[in-house]
């Protein structure tokens, strides 16, 4: 019996939580493998440099090395190596001056994703359906380990990999599961999801079926603990929104983890 926390498809095991999770996935909602693999590190780096991280102190070659290093370390760890059998999407988050996650998402990440998506698909757009400002509205779920990322972002930019491997987990299940995974695996937040999409704008576009919704898994609304934030496609467009029922699991709802450079 494998001791790996991830199965042969890179999906996280479901026995670390008592909360709602689909024990098996029929893989009905899927990312398009060709689209994800269609982005090489060079292209991802250039998208991120153009739209999100204009003042990077490293080049595309060094970015590629960082990604290879992260993957090499994962490969050597037989408890988590299977995570590489699923999707992995590189990202960079720039050093952030402001501590407020909502402000950063609103002022930096949404405009960057709108520009990157528009550059890739001239006719289509990222539509923000969240009516009120996100400023001072987002907090971190206890147990998500996300503080490690926000604390480091005060000092430096972060390169990492996003793994949408908690597919069909509820929020409580995703948080409980991540709390039991090795310390270097954290629940993804808005920065990582949006950065991954800025680097690879078409990964939520699928022509022959439906792709999943991606939650900002580590983030909660400061006023409503039953509300989560997410990105999902609508037709050929992307939408940013918030919704309830986050204690439930759904086939369409995917949570993600991140592993970052040391």
């Amino acid at each position, binding site marked *: 019996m494998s001791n790996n926390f991830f199965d042969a498809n890179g999906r996280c095991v479901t026995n670390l939580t008592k909360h709602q999770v689909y024990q098996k996935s029929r893989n009905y909602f899927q990312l398009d493998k060709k689209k994800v693999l269609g982005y090489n590190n060079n292209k991802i780096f250039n998208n991120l440099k153009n739209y999100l991280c204009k003042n990077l102190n490293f080049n595309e070659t060094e970015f590629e090395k960082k990604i290879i290093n992260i993957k090499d370390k994962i490969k050597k760890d037989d408890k988590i190596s299977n995570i590489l059998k699923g999707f992995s999407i590189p990202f960079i988050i720039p050093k952030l001056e402001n501590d407020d996650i909502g402000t950063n998402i609103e002022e930096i990440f949404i405009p960057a994703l709108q520009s990157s998506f528009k550059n890739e698909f001239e006719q289509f757009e990222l539509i923000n359906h969240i009516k009120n400002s996100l400023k001072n509205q987002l907090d971190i779920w206890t147990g998500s380990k996300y503080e490690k990322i926000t604390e480091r972002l005060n000092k430096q930019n972060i390169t990492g990999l996003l793994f949408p491997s908690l597919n069909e987990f509820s929020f409580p299940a995703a948080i409980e599961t991540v709390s039991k995974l090795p310390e270097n695996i954290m629940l993804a937040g808005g920065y990582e999801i949006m950065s991954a999409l800025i680097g690879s704008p078409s990964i939520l576009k699928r022509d022959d079926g439906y792709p999943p*919704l991606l939650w900002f898994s580590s983030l909660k609304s400061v006023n409503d603990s039953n509300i989560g934030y997410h990105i999902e496609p609508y037709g050929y467009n992307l939408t940013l929104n918030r919704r309830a*029922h986050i204690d439930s699991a759904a086939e369409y709802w995917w949570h993600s983890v991140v592993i970052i450079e040391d």
Partner: protein
Amino acid sequence: MDHQEQIVLLSEQNLSEEEKKKRQGLAQKNPYVAKKLSKITENEEKGIISPIIRIEKNYLCNFQCSHCSAEYYMDRHLEKVLKTEENRPQMTLDDIKNISKQADELGISRFVITGGEPLVMRDFDQVVEAIDPSKHYIISDTNGWFLDDKKAKHIKSIGVEKVQLSLDSIIEEEHDKFRNKPHSYKKVMRAVDAALNADLNLILSTVLIGGRAKTKEFEDMCKFSTDRGIGLYISYAKPVGSATDHPEFVITKEDADIVRELEKKYKIFTHMTPSYGSFKGCITVKGIITITSTNEVTPCPYIDFSLGNLRKTSLKEVLDRGMRNPWLGPHRPDCLIGEDPSFIKLHQEKTAGKSHLPVPWGEGFSDENKLF
């Protein structure tokens, strides 16, 4: 909250000018219903669902359409095709009063009278009264055949606020052929004018079969509706009822994406189009339920699996069953019965050979359901 405050609250919502005017008019006329409608989005944020309740008191109809989802529920089908009869207890006006009361207690505010063709029902006025226009916003489906000026003014006077009128092609011959009813297109056009003259809110509805989204006829229809200022509801064809033997009617993801793009240009929407700040995706249970003539609750008009019978189970428990079912659940972006091949197959297998639909709770949907 007084009248005036209510009107201000409604105006503050993220609505079009036209919709604001309609809601302000309703707030003046029926503040109780207006208040319930205005709370739908707020309730959804709290996880409280507010589905539209479709009432199918009976299935009498003067049409026999190629794509009718209710055909297998009709006496004519049971008697002429299956050589059997309807022997289950039928919905009464008291059942409807009970449903109305339970719905009101749950904050639910919208009822659709459907069928069959509602305007051939002899007790249509009593059904409206039993639902209670002082408590609920009432909509009626119709094929338009009987909706002349006199009828439109009458149904408005007894408390119907809106009609949904079927139009299946902007080309007269094609509509009449699809509806198997000569002159039905002309009657729809007459009904459009009659509804507007009677100050009824009006939407047109049309069935989208595979490939139609790409046609000139479809875009012409979107344009016609938009030019007249009338919303056009696009209903995906489902492989049920009369359309069971037409797998080619099922739309593709491309068809769905084309429609979603046309939504930007025209006043059109599907059951999954975000509206008034509500982003439900597939609206089964979250946005709609159907109550059949035998008091069985199905999660949408096209899924013939019951979530329970309201003579045995409360409306609240039936809704809870739907929300915890893995096929239906809290959210999915596609149409379960119109697009998901696994569910379509399961539905066809479980309904095959059944003379009396829907399949009861426990035999189709149940708390034991798995996706495999």
